[in-house]
């Protein structure tokens, strides 16, 4: 919703300029009127003052006139000289003859006989004539001539009033003009806000469209890459399986058949690696984090690394002293280090040195926010090569899936994205330091393990991996996978009862008390997933061991990217060895517990 910049009263603000102009005119008119009024009032006031003075003189001079005391009369008259505004004062007797007088200047000398006008004003003078009364008779006249302040000296006062008024009017006018301008600007602003709003909406639409396109591009790139790699691998697998059938038909000998089967197997293993990398990048792989010592893990890898990298690359291990323990999925960490080592090897076709260092590290809140991790203590595993390095552009894209600088025979472009996905899923951070021609360092930061949750579970190798005709309840919704799994289980020496949904499983379980283990897919159709099914089964048969399998992690058994405690999982695709080891471990652990329980 567009913002309202002004309330609906803006109509007032539109007429405000006209109001201001009218106010200014009224102010000036009022000031002129006030000036005239003040002028008039001033003159009246002066006349009153002079009249009062004349009246006082007339009253006091009475006795002097009566007793013909000219000197006393003159004293009275001259007393008025103290007032500088009185120009002249005169007392006439009853015949109109001048009795006593005072004149400040020669031109203000009073006439010898009593004046005619009672009150006369001329220019800057005011003349007043009042009779002297005694015993009800007029016995003489008093004339006073006074200056009033000249107009010239009064004008500046009026000018000041006028100036102040003009200033006030100007202020009002300016305010009005400013208001008008402001209203105009506001109108423009509103219009622009509207346009901006429209543009934002347009932009958002465009960005949505762009995002959609980018998403489609990414999906296309991903699926294209996966399809390309899978097609290559399927070509290998299908070709070798075809060859296998033809050789069987041709009654080829076992050694040759085994060789062809092995080729098919290599292709399939690579496909499995590919899907694992995809899952790692999408952080959907079920991690099984364990407390571990990175120094030990790295040194255990040294033989593998030397074999993988070849003789022309020197491998150097620098284990940091007092290295903290961390918690991570050891297999995935090995994979990550191996991926980095393979990348380093490819960066050093002419040979060089690979250094793997470990150290303790600390993320302060500032750097932690940049790396999008929790601040605190970390261990760092740094993998450094002396290869060609990367440009900034390449380094920026290095973690993107299927981004590769190598030709297709070298890899899928998923190596670094596996590292990224795994490290992020483990609550860590990964950082590339590279300079063209100077080599590359990749640092893996993993959080320090502060509290050892429980003793490391020691996986004891089972005495025998073969089944002992125990009954396995197999739950799998995909018929092909179910049949394959059933065949593997039977070949491993187990009896198998199959089911495809949770409800069916529970019914089957009721009828078959001899079931020794539940082997279920996590993702099941219907109202019950594998985890819920397992919970329901355990409620009925608490001692029954459960082995999960899944193509990728679901919330059902994985939280925060980690397996829930007590959950046993074999990930798809699994081999005979994976499956048989997992089954035997569970069954023998159960047998031990049962034996314990039976002891008196």
């Amino acid at each position, binding site marked *: 919703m567009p913002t309202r910049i002004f309330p609906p009263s803006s109509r007032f603000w539109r007429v405000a300029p006209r109001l201001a102009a009218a106010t200014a005119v009224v102010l000036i008119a009022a000031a002129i009127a006030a000036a005239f009024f003040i002028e008039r009032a001033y003159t009246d006031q002066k006349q009153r003052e002079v009249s009062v003075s004349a009246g006082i003189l007339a009253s006091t001079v*009475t006795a002097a006139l009566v007793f013909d005391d000219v000197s006393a009369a003159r004293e009275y008259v001259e007393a008025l000289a103290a007032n500088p505004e009185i120009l002249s004062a005169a007392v006439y007797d009853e015949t109109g003859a*001048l009795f006593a007088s005072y004149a400040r200047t020669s031109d203000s000398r009073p006439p010898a006989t009593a004046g005619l006008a009672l009150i006369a004003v001329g220019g800057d003078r005011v003349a007043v004539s009042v009779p002297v009364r005694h*015993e009800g008779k007029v016995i003489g006249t008093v004339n006073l001539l006074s200056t009033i302040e000249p107009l010239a000296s009064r004008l500046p006062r009026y000018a000041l009033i006028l100036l102040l008024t003009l200033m006030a009017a100007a202020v009002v006018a300016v305010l009005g003009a400013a208001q008008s301008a402001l209203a105009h600007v506001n109108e423009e602003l509103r219009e622009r806000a509207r346009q901006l709003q429209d543009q934002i909406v347009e932009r958002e639409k465009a960005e949505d469209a762009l995002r959609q396109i980018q998403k489609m591009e990414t999906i296309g790139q991903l699926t294209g890459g996966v399809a390309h790699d899978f097609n290559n691998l399927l070509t290998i697998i299908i070709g070798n399986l075809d060859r296998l059938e033809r050789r069987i038909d041709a009654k080829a000998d076992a050694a040759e058949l085994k060789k062809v089967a092995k080729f098919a197997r290599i292709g399939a293993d690579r496909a499995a690696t590919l899907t694992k990398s995809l899952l790692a990048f999408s952080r959907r792989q079920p991690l099984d984090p364990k407390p571990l010592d990175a120094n030990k893990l790295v040194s255990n890898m040294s033989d593998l690394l030397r074999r993988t990298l070849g003789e022309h690359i020197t491998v150097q291990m620098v284990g940091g002293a007092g290295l903290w323990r961390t918690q991570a999925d050891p297999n995935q960490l090995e994979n990550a280090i191996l991926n980095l080592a393979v990348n380093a090897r490819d960066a050093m076709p002419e040979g060089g040195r690979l250094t793997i260092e470990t150290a303790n590290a600390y993320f302060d809140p500032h750097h932690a926010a940049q790396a999008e991790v929790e601040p605190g203590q970390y261990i760092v595993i740094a993998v450094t090569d002396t290869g060609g390095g990367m440009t900034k552009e390449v380094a920026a894209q290095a973690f993107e899936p299927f981004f590769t600088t190598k030709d297709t025979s070298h890899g899928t472009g998923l190596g670094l994205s596996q590292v990224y996905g795994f490290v992020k899923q483990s609550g860590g951070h990964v950082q590339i330091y590279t300079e063209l021609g100077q080599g590359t360092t990749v640092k893996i930061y993993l959080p320090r393990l502060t509290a050892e949750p429980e003793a490391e579970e020691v996986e004891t190798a089972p005495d025998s991996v073969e089944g002992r005709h125990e009954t396995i309840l197999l739950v799998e919704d995909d018929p092909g996978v179910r049949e394959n799994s059933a065949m593997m289980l039977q070949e491993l020496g187990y009896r198998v009862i199959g089911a495809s949904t949770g409800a069916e499983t529970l019914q089957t379980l009721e009828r078959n008390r001899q079931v020794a283990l539940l082997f279920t897919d996590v993702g099941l159709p219907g109202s019950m997933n594998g985890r819920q099914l397992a919970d329901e089964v355990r409620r009925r048969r608490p001692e029954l061991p459960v082995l999960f399998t899944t193509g990728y992690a679901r919330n059902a058994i994985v939280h925060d990217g980690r397996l829930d405690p007590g959950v046993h999982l074999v990930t798809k695709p699994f081999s005979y060895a994976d499956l048989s080891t997992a089954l035997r471990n569970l069954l023998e652990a159960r047998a031990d517990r049962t034996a314990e329980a039976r002891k008196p």
Partner: protein
Amino acid sequence: MLSVLLSPVVSRAEDASLEYAVKATFLYKLGPFVTWPAHAFETPTGPVNLCVVGRDSFGATLDQAVAGQVIGTRSIAVWRLAAVDRGRACHILYVGTNDPRLAAEVLDAVGGTPTLTVTDGIRDARAKGVVNFVIVASRVRFEIDDHAAAQGGLEISSKVLSLAVAVRPRS
């Protein structure tokens, strides 16, 4: 100029009758500036009694001067007395003598009554009336004893007091 000519200037060289003409007018002209207590008059409209005791230097001049004159609403009655008569209420009493002893006797006779006593040229302070005519710079002027006026219950206007060449204040 005219006022100088018209003013009652008196000099030794000039006619003494002019001096007494002026004094005659002063006698009644003082009236409006004096307030008598109400009991001084027998009736509200009764005349103001202007008495002359002792030597009468005015003659007909005084009668002519007061003819038709009023003080407020009262007419003026001129009385010439051989001796002060306490029974006759004199509102204005001219004491026509230069002799301070005689003057003092007259003043004692009317002491405490509401009488505006007027002496003429007396120098002895004890023999001066409420008003005492003097000649100053050839003009008729007067001294006023406001203290004595107050003893008789008279109020004398400040307008006249301000014209007096000397005033003995009330207290």
